[in-house]
């Protein structure tokens, strides 16, 4: 059985739209370019493809419609009847049949014209054939137009039908119009049915869901039924009748005891009797509604008689008041009914066959009932009822609840002494873990250690280090000398290292151009005297040597110690004067901030290539 989803049927287009859709699809999805100079086979193929494609599209689209609309014979008789009532079975079937025929005819057209196209001898001929084929298919569709429109209407209405499951637990509410059926359903479910004072407020079936014993129950509200023969009933009443007829549900027949619906109890009883055959095999409940307006006791005798008669038909006599009670009773009755039904069916046997309760085989016929000694029984009777144990949960609730209280796990510790339970156990001391030292015989170990220490210390005291002074100490002057030696060594090293690093970049200046005056005679004298030699002889020799070069020097020139080189001047005074003159000459220039020879000049302040001409890319609003 195919599953239909009545809410998800594709939209049925009108005839005109249908044609448009199919033709535009053909145009888009098939090649469009053809020329009369192409090979004839190619032309034929081109047009045949178009015809076939159109047929295929028609086929596909009509096929989906036909498949998606439910076959009235395939679905549950309740829905079948419902749709018959709403849409007229014959009309529906005819419409679908028309679509089927259209599909077949389109196929036929396609076959015929493809046969003809095989023998088309020019582009013009083929094109005409194709035009004819497509044209005939489209006229067909036009003829089917009204069916399509009807089916679209049906689809729209079907999508809004309430989703009633005919097989599940259902409660059906019926009765005269305005007796309070919709109010009841509003009360027990979340359905929001219109409740108005005029009759036939509810015009179609409404479904609500409610719960009982952890199960979902459908509650179906029907439009009111009037008392006249079946043939005279209108569509709306037929809905209720259909529901009553096909759904196996608990039926709640509502009686309005106050008569505010406009019908007397007698009329309602008459209705009851006339639709009694519909209640076959269904658990029935007679509900007296609107008892706030008139209670049961204050009813006149005949009316009460009538109600009692109705009740006799119902399989139980109940006078409970209250909406919930009614619901509960109805549910219970239906459950029982369904269980009975299941018990009688074959399914039960299947289940029974699979269950097996193993009972031990008795070895003899002796009875062995459970034995409780009399003393125990007496004690049990005598003992006072035990107070409930104090649980951890009670403790938690007392001390602030779940988020506040945290259980003290220490209460359950097993220790040698109970008073140790709340101890704060140290873990670390002085950079060591206490757990690494813990030992039950730590004291014994400690004693051993003490003994060892004793021995060691005795051994130590025997060998005092007296012999560490076997070599003599250096005297303070010797130490001074040692320090000086070390310093000298360090200096040599440093100098060498510096020299090494700058070796490549240091110029080799001969000693006579000694700018830093490191090789003067006074220095030499000092150095020699530090070493302990009398320097006077060496100094004299050095000076005399320099004095010997009289020819290269002017008279009076003495290489005075500490004197500066003259650079060609007669004396220092002359040199000073020359420098002063030089500076003076510059003063004026500097004061007037004039450019000198040594100052940087820009030859061309406005080079042409920067200040004129267009740019190949970009703007020239900045120069």
């Amino acid at each position, binding site marked *: 059985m195919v599953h239909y989803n009545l809410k998800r049927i594709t939209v049925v287009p009108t005839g005109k739209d249908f044609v448009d859709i199919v033709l535009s699809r053909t145009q888009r999805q098939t090649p469009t370019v053809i020329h009369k100079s192409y090979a004839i086979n190619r032309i034929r193929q081109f047009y045949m493809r178009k015809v076939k494609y159109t047929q295929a599209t028609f086929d596909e689209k009509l096929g989906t419609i036909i498949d998606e609309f439910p076959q009235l014979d395939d679905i549950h008789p309740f829905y079948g009847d419902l749709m018959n009532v709403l849409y007229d079975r014959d009309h529906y079937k005819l419409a679908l049949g028309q679509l089927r025929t259209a599909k077949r005819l389109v196929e036929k057209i396609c076959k015929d014209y493809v046969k003809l196209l095989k023998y088309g001898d020019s582009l013009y001929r083929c094109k005409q054939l194709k035009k004819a084929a497509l044209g005939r298919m489209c006229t067909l569709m036009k003829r089917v137009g009204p069916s399509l429109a009807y089916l679209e209407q049906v689809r729209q209405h079907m999508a809004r039908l309430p989703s009633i499951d005919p097989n599940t637990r259902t409660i059906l509410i019926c009765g005269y119009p305005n007796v309070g059926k919709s109010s009841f359903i509003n009360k027990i479910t979340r359905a929001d049915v219109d409740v108005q004072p005029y009759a036939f407020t509810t015009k179609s079936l409404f479904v609500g869901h409610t719960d009982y014993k952890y199960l979902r129950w459908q509650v179906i509200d029907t439009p009111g039924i009037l008392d006249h023969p079946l043939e005279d009933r209108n569509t709306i009443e037929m809905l209720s009748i259909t529901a009553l007829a096909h759904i196996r549900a608990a039926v709640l027949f509502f009686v309005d005891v106050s008569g505010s619906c406009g019908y007397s109890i007698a009329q309602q009883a008459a209705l009851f009797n006339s639709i009694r055959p519909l209640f076959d095999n269904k658990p029935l409940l007679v509900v007296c509604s609107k008892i706030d307006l008139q209670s049961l006791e204050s009813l006149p005798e005949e009316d009460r008689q009538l109600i009692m008669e109705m009740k006799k038909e119902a399989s139980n006599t109940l006078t409970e008041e209250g909406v919930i009670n009614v619901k509960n009773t109805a549910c219970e009755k239906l459950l029982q009914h369904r269980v009975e039904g299941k018990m009688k069916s074959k399914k039960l046997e299947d289940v029974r066959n699979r269950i097996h309760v193993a009972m031990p085989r008795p070895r003899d016929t002796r009875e062995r009932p459970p034995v409780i000694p009399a003393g125990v029984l007496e004690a049990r009777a005598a003992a006072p009822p035990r107070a409930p144990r104090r649980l951890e949960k009670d403790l938690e609730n007392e001390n602030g609840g779940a988020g506040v209280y945290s259980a003290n796990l220490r209460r359950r510790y*097993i220790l040698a002494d109970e008073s140790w339970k709340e101890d704060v156990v140290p873990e670390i001391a002085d950079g060591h873990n*206490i757990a690494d030292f813990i030992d039950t015989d730590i004291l014994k170990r400690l004693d051993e250690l003490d003994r060892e*220490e004793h021995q060691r210390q005795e051994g130590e005291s025997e060998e005092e280090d007296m012999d560490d002074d076997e070599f003599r100490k250096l005297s303070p002057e*010797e130490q001074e000398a040692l320090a*000086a*030696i070390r310093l*000298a060594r360090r200096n040599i090293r440093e100098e060498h290292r510096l020299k090494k690093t700058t070796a490549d970049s240091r110029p080799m200046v001969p000693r006579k151009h000694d700018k830093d005056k490191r090789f003067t005679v*006074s220095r030499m004298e000092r150095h020699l005297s530090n070493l302990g*030699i009398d*320097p006077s002889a060496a100094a004299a020799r050095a000076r005399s040597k320099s004095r010997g070069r009289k020819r290269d020097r002017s008279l009076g020139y003495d290489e005075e110690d500490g004197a500066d080189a003259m650079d060609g001047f007669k004396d220092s005074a002359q040199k000073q004067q020359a420098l002063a003159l030089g500076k003076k000459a510059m003063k004026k220039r500097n004061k007037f901030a004039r450019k000198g020879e040594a100052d940087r000049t820009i030859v061309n302040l406005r080079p042409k290539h920067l200040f004129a001409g267009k740019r190949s890319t970009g703007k020239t609003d900045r120069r």
Partner: protein
Amino acid sequence: MRLEKCWFCSSTIYPGHGMMYVRNDAKIFRFCRSKCHKNFKMKRNPRKVKWTKIYRKLHGKELPQDTTFELERKRNRPERYDRNVVEDTVKAMKKISETRVEREAQFWKNRMRGKKTQQRREDLAELQQGIHLVKAPTALLEEPSLTLPKEKMKVKVSVEQESKAMES
């Protein structure tokens, strides 16, 4: 909470310090600081790195094994809490670390024994070798003691007229 030992330098790792590296074979390496961690990443062998405890123990710079070390041992089976035992342990720990300190000091003393003599010998040798840097051989001949020479001549540091620098 446990104080761990650094895998590289064997110092204690206090909570909140250092890093832990878990290798694919589930061996755990704990480091006290990034210095040790970086050395480890460089695949240096702590036995060859001078400043680690392992090196020092291996090369006889520190007390290598002792009963005090054996008293501190990681026990894998937890003992049931006993207040008296813990009290005794805490007291014992103090005593143990004191003895350990003493023993280490003694070890150091033993190691350094004879150092003074050697040092003096070396100093004398250096003095003898290098005396020529600070004392001229002639002076040494006159005065053979290994001391700085006496100032032979006071060099007249004449205050010459400060001629201004010739080169500005």
